[in-house]
Every structure is written in structure tokens, then in C-alpha cells.
């Protein structure tokens, strides 16, 4: 009777599997707040919802060029295949026109919709803290403020069996935050609370700026989560820098005013936005009220407020003095002179809000140099905002510079003018060049 234990084992595994699936399905059905009431259809509430939608940057994923707003269709690559964002206009057939406010809340904060768990590409892992009144405002906007669009959702390209959703339920249970609406600690200053609510929640800054573990879980989701919160993370070929004040490569030398200006225009005297953060500025943070932007800056500056052992950045004249005298002997200096100095200047200071300074720029100083190398290779374009209509483009230099030259000039800018960024290796450059954007 040799086979019997094996058959029993397989049967038990099958039962466990079916059980797991059933538990997941039931769990999804049961998820959510059931006490939410439908909001009144008021212009003020819809406007508030529109504003919150900007804060949450729903448009970044749910709107694509050439299609009606919020009708979805953005292709997002995951490790197991591509998925497409959904139509969240109030269209009854293709959109969310039939959703109740509870359904909406469930999707937004629990990550459950249509009876199954959502891929955490939808950042319910950050939106979880949205207060009930704001959920209602968002619902009012998406039900009554957005124009219905008859655009069917596209099927994901994930093959079966990987396309089964029930494992996501377990991911959600283990790795997502408990969907508890935000409430500020007692006696907290209003600006700090407001900033925390946004940054931890709708702003979903951590989705890019907080490192994840092997399970793709954010390693911290609020300031009490410790020094990993918003300390910087790799996003495709870039490194989203630290939003803390924890040493070189962070915002420790930025004032709240500078940070506020950055949120509203994408630029200040210290640097200019690049990569996918440009879109965030354009679609989301440039539309923040002055109060909300200031609160956000205030909150970010409160991280590591107790201080850090790291010294502030100090500009060093040495580099520029050598270049002025005709000394380009430092490795990478000649590449810098030939490709970079025209805009970023031999003194590394750039031109404020036109070409970013490299001297003292946290992106340049960060431990992780992915952004520096990617920008050298592919260039960058500043965002057009209401306050800053001019757009400046840095061309890419992949065609002009060899891997060695890219490495040399990256190391040159990271160690000149007082910058303290460690060297990059040739392998890192080769790797980043080969990764298509």
C-alpha cells in the first residue's frame, strides 16, 4: 500500500487549497465598512472630491492620453505579466456607476473590488487612512462630477494560473496596512497632522520613496515606523530619494519654504524634479493649496527632527578653481566640461530653476546613484506647471558617452564641489544602460 500516503497527502493539499480559495473569497466579500452612508450630491462636496482626487493623483493611473478622463487603460508591467487600469468613470456598464459608497470605500482602502482583491499597483496600501468624509467626497466626485465614459476595461495579460486572484487576499491580509482612518494624536499641531494625513495616505509618497521587503511590502508606512519610512527606494531605473533629513542624499538642508515651492512647481534653488515625480507635480501637487503644501513640507521636515549625526552640505570651491585654471585632470572632469558644464556650470551650481544645481543636490549625493546615471543616459524634462510654464529639457547622452565616460562623469559630479556621493561602478552603468525605459 505504498501509494496510499501519497494519495492522502495530495487529497489533503487539495482540500487545503480549496479551503484557502474559499476563505479568500469569503474574506473579500466580508471586507469593508458597511456603515458608510451615500453622500449628498452637492457641488461643494464634488469640488472637495475633485481636489482630493488630485491629491491622490488618481489620474496618474486611471487616465491615459487620447482617452476620456479616468477611463483607465494604462498598461502596468508586473513581474507576472501586464495589467490594465480600470475605468473609474460613473459609466454603468464599463465604469463604477453601479458602485455604492461602501463598494467605493472597499476598493479605495481595502483593495477589494468586484469580489476580489486588487493588485497592490492600486495603492490601497496608502489610501487606507482616508477619513470617511473624504471617502464620501471622492465618491461624490467620481459618481457625479466625472463624465461617464463608455470604455470597456482591458483584460490583464497575466496567464492562468498566475491570474488567480485569491493569493492577493492573503497578501493583503499579511502585508497591507489595517484600513484604519487617520486620526491625529492628541495635541498635535494641525499642520503636522494635515501633512501626515496626506503623506501617509492620499499622497502615497511611500509607494515610491519607502523601500520594500521581499514580499513587496512597504517596510514602514508612517513616521512611527522608524528610519526606513521614506528613506528612498529604487523605482525602475531611478532612485526616488530620501524625503527625510537623514544625511547626504536627503532633504536635510532644505527649508520648509523650499520644499513647499518644490511641491508646487517641481523646482527650487536646490534642484528640479525628474522621472515619474514630474507627473506627480503636474497632476497632483502643483494643485495643492498653499496650506496643504506647507503642511506636507512641515511633516516631512519633522522626520529626523531630533537631528542627525550627519553634517550639512558645505560647498567647496576647489573643483571650480581647478577648472577655471585649465586643470581638467581629475577623472571625469573633461567629460563634464564637454557635456555638462554648459548648463550645470563649472561651479556645479546650474541656473536656479532652469538647470538644476549638482552641488549639494540630494539626488547627486544619494548613496544610490541610479538616478544620476539614468539622467545622464536618457536626459530629463522639467514639468510645465501653472506657475512655471517654461519647460527645460536635458538631452540624453547615451549616444555620446561610453559606459566608462558615464561612470567617470557620474563619479566626478558626485565627488566635486563638496558632494559626498560614493563612486558608482562600471557594472552599474552597463546595467542601467541595458534596462529599457
Amino acid at each position, binding site marked *: 500500500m505504498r501509494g496510499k500516503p501519497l494519495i492522502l497527502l495530495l487529497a489533503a493539499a487539495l482540500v487545503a487549497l480549496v479551503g484557502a480559495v474559499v476563505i479568500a473569497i469569503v474574506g473579500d466579500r466580508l471586507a469593508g465598512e458597511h456603515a458608510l452612508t451615500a453622500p449628498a450630491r452637492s457641488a461643494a462636496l464634488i469640488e472637495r472630491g475633485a481636489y482630493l482626487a488630485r491629491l491622490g493623483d488618481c489620474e496618474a493611473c486611471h487616465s491615459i492620453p487620447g482617452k476620456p478622463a479616468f477611463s483607465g487603460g494604462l498598461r502596468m508591467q508586473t513581474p507576472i505579466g501586464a495589467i490594465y487600469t480600470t475605468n473609474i468613470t460613473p459609466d454603468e456598464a464599463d465604469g463604477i456607476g453601479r458602485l455604492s459608497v461602501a463598494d467605493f470605500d472597499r476598493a479605495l482602502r481595502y483593495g477589494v473590488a468586484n469580489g476580489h482583491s486588487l493588485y497592490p499597483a492600486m495603492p490601497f496600501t496608502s489610501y487606507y487612512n482616508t477619513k470617511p468624509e473624504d471617502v464620501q467626497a471622492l465618491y461624490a466626485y467620481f459618481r457625479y462630477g466625472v463624465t461617464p465614459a463608455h470604455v470597456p476595461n482591458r483584460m490583464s495579460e497575466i496567464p492562468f494560473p498566475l491570474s488567480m486572484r485569491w493569493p492577493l487576499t492573503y497578501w493583503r491580509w499579511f502585508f497591507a496596512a489595517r484600513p484604519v482612518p487617520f486620526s491625529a494624536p492628541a495635541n498635535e499641531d494641525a499642520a503636522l497632522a494635515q501633512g501626515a494625513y496626506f503623506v501617509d495616505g492620499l499622497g502615497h509618497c511611500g509607494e515610491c520613496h519607502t523601500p520594500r521587503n521581499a514580499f513587496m511590502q512597504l517596510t514602514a508606512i508612517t513616521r512611527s515606523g522608524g528610519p526606513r519610512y521614506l528613506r528612498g527606494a529604487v523605482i525602475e531605473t531611478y532612485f526616488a530619494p530620501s524625503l527625510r533629513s537623514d544625511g547626504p542624499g536627503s532633504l536635510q538642508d532644505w527649508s520648509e519654504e523650499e520644499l513647499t515651492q518644490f511641491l508646487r512647481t517641481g523646482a527650487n534653488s536646490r534642484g528640479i524634479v525628474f522621472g515619474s515625480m514630474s507627473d506627480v507635480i503636474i497632476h497632483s501637487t502643483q494643485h495643492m493649496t498653499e496650506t496643504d503644501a506647507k503642511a506636507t513640507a512641515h511633516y516631512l521636515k519633522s522626520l529626523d527632527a531630533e537631528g542627525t549625526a550627519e553634517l550639512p552640505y558645505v560647498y567647496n570651491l576647489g573643483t571650480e578653481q581647478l577648472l577655471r585654471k585649465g586643470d581638467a585632470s581629475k577623472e571625469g572632469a573633461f567629460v563634464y566640461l564637454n557635456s555638462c558644464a554648459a*548648463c550645470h556650470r563649472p561651479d556645479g551650481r546650474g541656473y536656479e530653476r*532652469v538647470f538644476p544645481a549638482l552641488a549639494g543636490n540630494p539626488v547627486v549625493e544619494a548613496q544610490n546613484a541610479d538616478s544620476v546615471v539614468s539622467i545622464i543616459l536618457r536626459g530629463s524634462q522639467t514639468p510645465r506647471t501653472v506657475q512655471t*510654464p517654461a519647460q527645460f529639457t536635458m538631452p540624453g547622452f547615451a549616444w555620446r558617452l561610453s559606459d566608462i565616460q558615464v561612470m567617470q562623469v557620474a563619479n566626478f559630479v558626485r565627488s566635486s564641489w563638496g558632494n559626498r556621493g560614493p563612486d558608482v561602478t562600471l557594472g552599474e552603468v552597463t546595467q542601467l544602460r541595458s534596462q529599457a525605459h
Partner: protein
Amino acid sequence: MTTPRKLKPVDAVIIGYGWTGAILAKTLTDAGLQVVALERGPARDTSPDFEYPRIADELRYGIRGDLWQPLAAETVTVRHTVNDTAVPYRKYGSFVLGNGVGGAGVHWNGQLWRASPEDFRLRSHIEQRYGKHFIPSEMTIQDYPVSFEELEPHFDHFEKVCGVSGVAGNLRGTVQPHGNPFEGPRSDEFPTPPLPAIYAAQLFEKASAQLGYRSFPVPAANSSVAFTNPYGVRLGPCNLCGYCERFGCFLYSKASPQTTILPILAARPNLEVRTGAYVTRILQDSSKKRATGVIYIDENGQELEQPADLVILSAFQMHNVRLLLLSGIGAPYDPSTGQGLVGKNYAYQMCAVTSAFFAEDVHINPFIGAGAAGLSAIDEFNSDHNDHSKLGFVGGAVIFAGATGGRPIDQMLLPPGTARWGRAWKAAVRKHYRHSAPVTVQGSVMSYRDRYLSLDPTYKDKHGLPLLRITFDWHDNEYRMAAYAASKAEDIVREMRPQSQATLLLKPGNHYDTRIYQSTHTTGGAIIGSNPANSVINRYSQSWELPNLFIYGASAFPQNVGYNPTGILAGLAYFSAEKLKSTYLRSPGPLVS
């Protein structure tokens, strides 16, 4: 012959999307009009078209002229006198023609002047000062119907839009120490400070001072610092890269429509820009008192009609005149009768250059330069700043020092008598390249009865339409003017103590030579004036013939000046724009009775 397809009417159509096209696009879209801008050339922007380092290519942009109007598609014809047969301007030489979005406003030098108050009432001024007989009878100069004082706020505004760098010479009537003492009173200082003078300009400044002249930084639409203009558009600063005229600026510093105005127009839903749209005719209704729109040929060769209530002709001086002639708007000028106004008073500029050749320990570094920034000038001999009573000519010249760059194919200066090839040439370029500098005289050409524009009877563009014909040669007045100014330039250069110097000067007997670059400051043909008997447009740039047609550009100049024209024509455009906003758009009709 198929009828052109008629498009949906719009409120305004703009022909040519360069400087004045952009200025009017902003004005009209500000006022809520539905506007279509038609540009026959391609879309152009700093990125990708002027990107570093690819823009730093002398052969492509400085010699072949990839940013210019392709002559193969359309050119002009030239003859010296009415008795000659005109032949085509087959290769670029004397002037370069713009093309594409931004037009020549992309690849100009950025010298931004206002002209002096007397330049706007030149005939009256000369007659008052020197008597009625001072102006020869064949010289057809006339007054503008608008004064420097009326235009001043608009000069000021455009300078701010461009982030012009310079230092005031006359601030609200008080002469200032470091600027141009001859300039008309300005209401405000320049928006950005001047860049330091390049070495050649420094030598010029010292030498000028020795001779008692007051030099000053050339007003430059190359902003010297990062600057935000009144429209909220930010500009980059100039780094004297040496690739200025003929090139687009990669630093967002040289003012162009792209760097100063177009960013705020980018998202306007009531503006549509169509490139590859070649306007062939402005249409009128049967009464010939109203423009009804334009005919244009699109990129696919389709003929289309764009109806519009308001037509803005901003296609550059040459093409403005050509389109009026092709459209039959106004009577063409006939030099034998003096009748007709379209094409009348074509004028130009005459230039001379004194080159200074220094010893090999004098490091001129000619490659460090810009079209205007870093250059120095004196204005003593321009306009009517000095007493002309014994000189026997009208007009004058600005004298400015420094090369705009050191591009070796086009800007190599060698002493006269240097071999043009061989070992001696090879040695000479090494010896002189880094140690030579030019001092340039840029002088006004007056307007004359026998210098005009018309349609060519023989040659055609790629669509089979007649080319514009230029009938032009120098007059004695200009030879005298240039000789006088050049002698002053020579004095200054002598004082700069070079090892040797040489002057290139046109003399009587030297005909207008289309092979040699003078300037691209061609003017006239649709001149501004006080009544329909002496002009094509009124003081608001409005056509006397068709009140809903406005014409912008140096075609308005009744005669030329020694200065570069852009500041003046922009001032006229803004002056008109203000009237359009306040009066015309509320109640369309003739603005001057």
C-alpha cells in the same frame, strides 16, 4: 482646377508664426478669440531642435543653413535697376530668410534696439535741422505716424518679455553714465544686467574712451541671468557659446518666440497651430473692402480655405509684401509713375568691417562670443546723432566691436593680401585665428524711388507662384555714410593698437553683391504712414485697404535705420495689439479715419 476645401471659420488667422505672429497669438487668445496660426515651415523648439551639443555644428547650421527657408522651394529674384532682368537668389549670401515656428526669431543675433526718437520722424527732423533741400528728391523717406514716446512703453514691455541685458543710457530724461547716451528716454532700466564685455570689446571700449566716445554694452536679448519674464516664463542665461546667429540657442537664453511667449500659449484651447501650411493668398470679398480668410496648401499638397474674421499677416518683411501682391491687395508700386504703394520704399543696410590683427600674445579668443551679449558699441555716428550739415548724407551707423563667435569656416579673419590657399594660408590661419577681432559698421539705407519690390515675371516657387523681385542697388548717400562711419571705426581700431588692420568698405562702383552677407534687415514694401496716399498700413498696423487685415514686421519701415529692426517692429506690434484689445475687437472697423 478643384475648389479648395473650405474649413470651419475662426475668429482670427495668423500667417507666419514668428515673433509678431506669437505676439498677436497671445493678444488674440487672451481676448478669447478662436485663433489658427499657419506656419509654412516645421514645428521647432529648443528640444529637440537646438539641443546641445548637436546644435554646435557650423557646417549644418552656419553654412548649409538647415534652419533657414529652403531656397529650392522659394526664393527671391534680384536686379540692380528697373532696366535689368532680375535673376534668382539661388544661394544664400546677402541675407538669410527664416522658416518654421519662431522664424528668424530663432536664429537671429538677439541685438535689441529701439531706434532714436528722430528716426520716427526722420523727414521732418532732417528738414527742420538741415533745410528742405538736404534730402535729395529721389529719396522717398517719410515720418512714422507714431512717435517714439508713444511706442516707448511697448519697447519696454518687449525688452522685459525677452529678458534683455543692458544698461540704461537715458532713464526718464537723465543721461546715465554707462549706457547709450544717445538713446531716447526709457521709462525703466533694462530687465537684466549686461554680461561683461568680451576681450575685443574691452579693447574697443578703452580705445573709444581715448577718442572721447561713449561706448556701452550692446542691448542683448540674450538674458545674462536666469530670469522670469512678465508672462511667468523663465529664461536661461547666456554663456557666450559662440554659436549665436544662424543657430538656435540651447540654453533657453537667446530670446525667441519659443523661449519667451509660446510656453504660455502651449495649453490654450483656443489656439491651433498648423505647420507645413503655406499660405498662397489672402481672400477678399467682392467689395474688396474686407478680408475673408486665406488659401493655403497643407503638407499633403491639399489646397484649403481658412475663413476668418480677422487676418494677421506676420510672415516676415519679404513675404508680407509678396502675399499682398499675390492677393491683389492694394495697388503695386510702379517706379515710373510713382503710383501704387505695395512694394514701395524697399530698403536695407550697408555694412563695413575693420579687422584688427593682434600679436600672438593677445588672446582674443574669438570663439567666446554671442550675437549681442558681451559686445560693445558706440552710437555717436548713428541716426542723426551728429551734425550732418557738412557730411552730405542722411542716416548713420552703429559701430560695434567683437565677433559673435569664432566659427572657422565663416568667421576667419585674415589680413588682405593673405593667400587664399596653400602653405601661406595654412600658416596665416594659425597665426591670426586667435588674435583677430572685427569692428563692424552697420549703417542705414534710405528709401528711394527706384528701389522697390514687385512680382517677378519669370521665376516661380515650387507651387508655381511668382517669386518676389527685389530691385535694389546702393545710392551715393550710402557710400558716403559708410565711408564716414568706417573712418571713425578705423580711428578706434588704430587706438586699439593692433599689429595691423584692414577695412572692407563698399565704394562707389561696388554694386549690391548678393554673395556677401550684409544683414538680414530688409525693410519696407508695406510701409506705415499717416494716410492711404503715402502708406499701406496706418499707425496701428492696420491695412488702409482692408480694415480687418493687420500687417506686422519690418515691411512697415518707411526707410531703414542703422539699428537691428526687431525691437522696433515688436514695439509697433505691441502698440497695435493694445489698440486691437481696447478698440478694434469691441468694434471692428478702421482705427484711423
